[in-house]
């Protein structure tokens, strides 16, 4: 269980508070721009310090741990891969800050690439991949890191609708059983992926509730975000 215990973050005149518990499975995060979605993920990932409260995983406080030492792996909207390193080397960084891999690790990388549909792409540079393929390579590294919490900060926002649907299906399939927090700005993503939904708006984070129910009967903050007629 990932527990955000009476947590508050303050950044340049902006305060975000949250008090909630996240179970395994995909939880979507939606809300207006500048509402604090990325800040929330940043706090869990270890990039944003807390002003108050605690973030605990299975009962242990994460406060003292840096981004790399948390049980968390991340995918951002861009810059998920070092453009000067091959796919193989980018994935090797999942095992630690060295670029050399053992034969066993090389096998693991090949398996991960298989699972995301990038068989045979190990020696390519990221720049020679399509946007969708780059997202898949990033996802393969998340698999190799094998951490229980996965934070997805709009990683598929730059993809077209068909590609995005494909990636969401892939995420649901390969990350099954982990605690996944995914920022999105598209209601159709929510319906497609199901799971729980939290709304981040006006400096507060709503309690997770099933996405389908929330969309059918939106609370005021969500209704404001979606607009009339949704």
């Amino acid at each position: 269980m990932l527990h955000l215990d009476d947590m508050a973050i303050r950044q340049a005149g902006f305060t975000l508070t949250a008090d909630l518990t996240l179970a395994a499975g995909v939880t979507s995060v939606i809300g207006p721009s500048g509402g604090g979605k990325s800040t929330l993920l940043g706090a869990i990932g270890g990039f944003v310090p807390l002003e108050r409260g605690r973030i605990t995983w299975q009962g242990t406080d994460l406060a003292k741990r840096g981004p790399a030492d948390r049980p968390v792996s991340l995918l951002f909207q861009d810059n998920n891969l070092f453009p000067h390193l091959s796919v193989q080397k980018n994935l090797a960084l999942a095992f630690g800050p060295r670029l050399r891999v053992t034969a066993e690790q090389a096998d693991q990388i090949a398996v991960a690439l298989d699972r995301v549909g990038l068989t045979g792409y190990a020696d390519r540079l990221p720049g020679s991949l399509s946007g969708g393929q780059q997202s898949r390579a990033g996802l393969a590294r998340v698999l190799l890191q094998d951490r229980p919490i996965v934070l997805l900060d709009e990683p598929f926002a730059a993809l077209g609708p068909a590609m995005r649907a494909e990636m969401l299906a892939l995420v649901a399939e390969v990350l099954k059983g982990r605690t996944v927090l995914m920022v999105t700005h598209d209601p159709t993503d929510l319906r497609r992926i199901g799971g729980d939904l939290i709304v981040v708006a006006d400096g507060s984070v709503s309690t997770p509730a099933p996405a389908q129910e929330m969309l059918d009967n939106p609370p005021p903050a969500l209704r404001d975000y979606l607009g009339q007629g949704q």
Partner: protein
Amino acid sequence: MARSAVAISLPRWPAPLAAALVASAILGPLVALLWLVPSVGGMGPADWAAVRFTVLQAAASATISILLAVPVARALARREFIGKAAVLTLLGAPFVLPVIVAVLGLLAVFGRSGLVNQSLAMLGLPAVDIYGAQGVVLAHVFLNLPLATRVLVQGWAAVPAEHLRLAASLNGSVFRLIELPMLRRLVPGLWLVIALLCLSSFAVALILGGGPKATTIELAIYQAIRFQFDIGHAAVLAIVQLAISAGLALAVTKLATGVIVDGARGRTIGNWQRDSLAKQIVDMIWIGAAVLFVAGPILLILLRGGVMMGALPDAFVGAMIRSLCVAGAATGIALALGMALCIGGGRWAALAGVLPLMLSGLVLGTGMFVIANRFVDPALIGLPVTALANGLAALPFVLRSIGPQIDKDRLQFGRLSASLGVQGWQAVRIVLLPRLRRPLCFAAGLTAAMSMGDLGVIALFSGHDQATLPLLMLQLMGSYQNDAAAAVAAVLVLASLLIIWVLDWGGRSHAAP
């Protein structure tokens, strides 16, 4: 989306250490100079004459360079012709051309038995004399006209096409509405930059200047040390030189923000094809004259040197090895200090990057000479000190070529690196260095070429059998062996170009995307 900026965290100790090294290498000699000053007398009339000449020739050189550069740049910005890219490349050449080679080339054209005087003699006209103030200014115009032209071409290229159309639709004067304001913005800073360069170009004054009417402060320093053995007098002059160039350097940092010296290709602006044939011809004459003026001396010296390769003296091999060693050491010093300062972030780099601009190589060398003279025979440490002074002089260029890339990468890959635990030296090795390959190679080539061609500190320190290639050239010219000097010049230029080309090629191949 409120993105908190996360920068890659890098080792903290190298930057302050490098800054301390730079500061002590520069402030140490400065303190040594200031220490000596009170114990000696003031400035004599000859010294004041040197100050006056230094300032006046710098002002004249900057003014003439810019006055000539305006029509050339205007023509280059307006006309499209085959070979335009080659002309723009040629205008970059004097930047890495050793000054002494440029002077030798000018002597081949304007010297006593040069092309110009031979032609004048055939026509029965009196000869022109390149030695003296006019020669110093001529050489400075030769070295800086190309720089001024490139900067102004970029000024023209940066004019938005909409502004030209707007001026045309308003039936206004393009010159008054667009060109004059652009020049008014660029010229003051450019003038200061060129004047600063001309204040401290020792090699030009050493060969073409001299005598009561054409001695610069730096030449007077050299004479005080080499011929009068009066170190105190040299120290006083060095402080005066420092005060003048530091004041100008300060003005440059304030005013010359619009002056960009790197190589954007000039695009042709506006629709000038409808200009009258006469206007087009005038423009092409300006361009042709500039090309002749810049390329002529260089080609002449390379040809003469190539033909006279057999005249290479015995001392050549040793000088070549010494030059390569000095250039290699200077490059190592500049890159190591530059990397250390840049991974410490902008503050350290900015601080230590400005210091070398204040002191010319010769002033720095004078300070080091004052220190060295107390402990050892200066001739013993001439080569290491030259490498150090060259490395420090190149540091601002190194910082400018690698700093922006490091700052950008630190932010762009900050979160990714943090989430993967790639920090500190690991981040330098895995993230930063592979992406710096190109700017590092560029900076290395530039530093090595500048050091190979430098004739400043080495002239103060050198003892017997310590000549580098430029100093060997000077010695050969001093004993009227101009063929041998030309041969050395040709090798020096080719070696510098080869180093730049190889490093540039190394930087481009397998360069990080």
